[in-house]
């Protein structure tokens, strides 16, 4: 039961990732791509946490935490850059 729900959740998250990827490819603006990237990151964090459950390794949670930290900084930096550069 729990096993099945994990795989179902992973499948749904994968579809969400593909949809975000579609927006990333289509753009049209850089801003659209940054938003898509942000969404892909959040979905990715869920993915990492799910992997942690399946593999039963708590250390992956730290990976998810650091990933969240880095992507937050990344989005802020890119947004500030676009604000001045465009």
């Amino acid at each position, binding site marked *: 039961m729990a096993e099945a729900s994990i795989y179902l959740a992973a499948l749904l998250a994968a579809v969400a990732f593909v949809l975000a990827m*579609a927006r990333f490819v289509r753009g049209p603006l850089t801003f659209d791509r940054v938003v898509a990237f942000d969404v892909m990151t959040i979905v990715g964090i*869920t993915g990492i*946490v799910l992997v942690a459950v399946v593999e039963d390794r708590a250390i992956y949670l730290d990976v998810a*935490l650091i990933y969240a930290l880095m992507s937050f900084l990344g989005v802020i930096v890119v947004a500030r850059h676009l604000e001045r550069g465009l």
Partner: protein
Amino acid sequence: MTSLLAVLGGLLLVAGASFLLLGGLGLVRMPDVYNRIQAGTKATTLGTLLTLAGVACLHPGWTMKLLLIGLFLLFTNPLSSQVLARAAHRSKVAPTAATEVDLLDETKGDGA
């Protein structure tokens, strides 16, 4: 008791992942950057929080660290959305033609 937690965890996982899916769908369907930020980043925030709660039910020992990830997302996600939306508006990215009013444009003009 344990099995009840497992069922709850499974339900939360699937519910959270469904919100992720809706967020992705919104990202593809919405007409302009601002609406995409809305549909994309926020549905996925709730989705991730629910998924984390589900994992916490399956793995009670991890609750504290999952809570930390959730709190972190809760504080940083709105910030990045806001900075992104502000950057888009300051770079004169026009909202979709369907937008009925843009009070920010009228009141601020070319300033800022």
